[in-house]
């Protein structure tokens, strides 16, 4: 089942949280919804899950308008809100049974489904504990389990991995990947690696506007041609000498013996640097090409608007 955001606008007290955004998530697709804090990710997700009404535009889930058929939409959507609110005084299995009951599961079906979710989310040992006793990683699992208990076709996860330690991060990502086989999933994050680990399409939002909607590969390719090289010599060299080399645009000293070199154009300047070192009889101890990092793409996409608006304001 697909999810379509149509010209969505949300205004909170004259402040635009989301401004006329549109995108489409195909059935069965996993899409990362990326953006810095306060970009409008959560607002969009809240509208999609009917907890906040849109100012203009709408969201269609499985061709159902969320403002017109909220009950039907709720029945087929699983939602993990930001900060993962839970009834901390309930036991894990008790909580899952409660949520299952809200979706109309009853009796044996409910018991079976709860047990299945506990197994799938790796909560076997924790199921008889109170939620308040659980670590953050396990709470996140409970949050996912409650979002999945009614086997929803569409899964909306708002920052499912924020605040987890590296081990939990890997586990939760793997869990999301496993459970999303036959579901349409949209998850928000501000970590690029997450998108890389989970899916290949990404929608980037900044200040309420969509700044990119593409596969990760395409985004990386677009930003190519700005390769930079970090080079380390045994002893300090003069910046002037380095700058005079062919095909080099900018040289920046990182510390006494390490330099960051930006090449001009796509040509490889590494042989040039090697020859330079050999000529001067200086030992070259390190040479590393810095690929355009995911963080850089993210920063460029989400900062460019800021620059533009600044320029505009000036």
């Amino acid at each position: 089942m697909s999810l379509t955001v149509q010209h969505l606008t949300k205004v909170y007290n004259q402040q635009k949280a989301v401004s006329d955004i549109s995108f489409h998530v195909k059935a069965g697709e996993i899409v990362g919804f990326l953006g810095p804090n306060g970009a409008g990710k959560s607002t969009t997700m809240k509208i999609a899950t009917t907890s906040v009404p849109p100012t203009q535009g709408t969201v269609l889930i499985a061709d159902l308008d969320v403002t017109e058929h909220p009950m039907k939409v709720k029945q087929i959507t699983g939602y993990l809100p930001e900060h993962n609110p839970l009834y901390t005084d309930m036991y894990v299995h008790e909580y899952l049974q409660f949520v299952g009951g809200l979706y109309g599961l009853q009796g044996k079906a409910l018991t079976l489904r709860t047990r299945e979710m506990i197994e799938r989310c790796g909560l076997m040992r924790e199921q008889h504990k109170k939620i308040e006793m659980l670590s953050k990683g396990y709470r996140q699992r409970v949050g996912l389990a409650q979002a999945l208990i009614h086997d929803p076709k569409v899964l909306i996860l708002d920052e499912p991995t924020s605040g987890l330690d590296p081990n939990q991060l890997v586990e939760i990502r793997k869990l999301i990947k496993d459970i999303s086989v036959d579901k349409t999933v949209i998850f928000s994050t501000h970590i690029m690696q997450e998108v890389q680990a989970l899916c290949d399409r990404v929608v980037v939002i900044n200040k309420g506007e969509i700044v990119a909607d593409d596969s990760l590969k395409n985004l990386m390719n677009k930003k190519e041609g700005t390769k930079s090289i970090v080079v380390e010599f045994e002893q300090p060299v003069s910046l002037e000498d380095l700058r005079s080399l062919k095909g080099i645009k900018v040289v920046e000293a990182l510390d006494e013996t390490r330099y960051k070199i930006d090449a001009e154009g796509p040509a490889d300047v590494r042989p040039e640097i090697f020859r330079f070192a050999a000529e001067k009889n200086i030992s070259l101890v390190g040479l590393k090409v810095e690929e355009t990092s995911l963080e850089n793409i993210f920063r460029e996409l989400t900062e460019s608007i800021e620059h533009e608006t600044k320029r505009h304001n000036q």
Partner: protein
Amino acid sequence: MIQVLTKEISGFLNSLIAYIVIGVFLTTIGLLMWVFPDTSVLEYGYADMDTLFSLAPYVYIFLIPAITMRSFAEEKRAGTLELLLTKPLSDWDIILGKYLASFFLVIFSILPTMVYYFSIYSLGSPAGNIDTSGVIGSYIGLILLGGVFCSVGILASSLTSNQIVAFIVGAFLCFLLFTGFEALSSINVWLSQALLIKQLGILYHYEAMGKGLIDSRNLVYFLSVAFIFILITKLVTGSRSW
């Protein structure tokens, strides 16, 4: 609605709230009724339960807002209300579930006092010399009063995410409804309107029921006041989509 109701009730039972509420209510009323000489039935000399029925509302003014204060306020603060609102539940399901859970708890705190009736019944001289119909009317009145207080408390809780604010607002509104109008009507400026103002308050109708006459006007009063407060709660909860 049933799911919310059972969850709330098991929440009361698991978090000791239920035991504390019932325990405090029964201890207070028990002491006033049988031990403290100023209000004790044994000292009073008349076989009736006026002590219970005239003092219980004042205990409830504090106790019921304490039961209801967490219902919405805590869920708002913890963010779990958002979770509930994204489940296939209508606002009515959530509100009525929470309302009925508190109401049941109040009824459970009243039930054990029926023992008092049998005590006084047999202590009377001659035994059985008690106004049974008055007691029945008073019980119905007290239960309905609990229902109204619960709806007031639920409303107060839905207005804020701070439990203390919810408690104070709830207790104040209960107090105002119970004796406020009565006191207001005794100010000597209303002339012929005084009775009307008196009838807006709970006390007038509560006392009327205590006489053992179950008048449909009093019933309608209690039910409609409770309904109005629940309706306002619904509006407040629904206001997120305005």
